[in-house]
């Protein structure tokens, strides 16, 4: 048989992977290698595969992902800093037929919006919260966040986080898992292909649980911020695995009874 050429392979019938049709053509403003982009791609794939384009309302945060509505072609509403869960509560209560998610960074969800996060989860609002934890305030220049690791340097902890003064990093997923209102709490990553595929399965479960009115789903993505961490993207992913994962272990924290 004649040797198969590149042009023989790249035919539509041989397509194995292409980015979701729900991703717009806009070039994302994220820094090279930033996990926000990867998380967006996976979310768009799930919304497309679950036929949710017409039925979704996303709530965007304040933080690097503030412009997310430019990248995924579904309806969005922008919330004030940290208030995404409150806005999501209103949207879901007024339009219970919608699939409603928030997408929030750690400064947004675990600092300024702590009250909204906890009370929304405690009320068991039937929404999905996607929490991108990169241990830093990425957008504003890499300041320390409540999630910054002990000893981790940031622009406001140049000698490393001192837990005797700043307290220990807060594990929001573990906290909300204790509340009866949450039905599914799980921690993921998007820096490897295996991690991406697991995150995708978790998102699909969250869609199912919201369809079944089971309560709040909370999916954390432990992610990188190469610019704020002052590393190359590849170095940041290694640092993530060696330092963030031990403190924020991946896996399910709470799963609903079948």
């Amino acid at each position, binding site marked *: *048989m004649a040797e198969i050429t590149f042009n023989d392979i*790249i035919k539509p019938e041989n397509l194995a*992977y292409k980015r979701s049709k729900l991703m717009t053509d806009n070039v994302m403003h*994220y820094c090279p290698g930033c996990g926000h982009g990867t998380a967006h791609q996976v979310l768009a794939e799930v919304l497309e595969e679950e036929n949710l384009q017409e039925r979704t309302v996303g709530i965007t945060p304040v933080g690097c992902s503030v412009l997310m509505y430019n990248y995924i072609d579904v309806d969005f509403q922008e919330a004030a800093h940290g208030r995404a869960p409150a806005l999501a509560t209103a949207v879901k209560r007024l339009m219970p037929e919608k699939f409603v998610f928030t997408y929030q960074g750690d400064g947004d969800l675990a600092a300024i919006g702590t009250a909204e996060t906890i009370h929304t989860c405690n009320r068991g609002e039937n929404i999905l919260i996607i929490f991108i934890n990169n241990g830093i305030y990425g957008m504003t220049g890499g300041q320390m966040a409540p999630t910054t690791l002990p000893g981790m340097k940031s622009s406001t902890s140049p000698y490393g986080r001192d837990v005797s003064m700043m307290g220990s990093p807060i594990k929001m997923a573990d906290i909300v898992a204790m509340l009866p209102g949450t039905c599914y709490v799980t921690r993921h990553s998007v820096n490897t292909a295996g991690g991406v595929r697991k995150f995708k399965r978790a998102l699909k479960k969250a869609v199912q649980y919201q369809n079944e009115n089971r309560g709040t789903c909370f999916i954390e993505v432990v992610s990188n911020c190469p610019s704020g961490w002052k590393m190359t993207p590849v170095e940041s992913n290694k640092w993530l695995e060696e330092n963030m994962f031990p403190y924020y272990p991946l896996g399910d924290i709470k799963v609903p009874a079948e």
Partner: protein
Amino acid sequence: MAKIKGAVVVDRERCKGCEVCVVTCPTETLALATEVNSKGYHYSYAANPDACIGCANCAVVCPDGVITVYKVKVG
């Protein structure tokens, strides 16, 4: 024995040269180019195209969704 042959198409202009795909590829198919795109990024390309098995690992970790993957069974 049936063998899988893959091929990747990288949208060079949208690539940000982050190298995440390069280190993810199990077959060392990809590398960053010495040339840059119009934004100044050393874009990713298939330096060793015959090695590609079409697993799509590179494409799913690409934050910018710039890699399209194809694969065929041969033999």
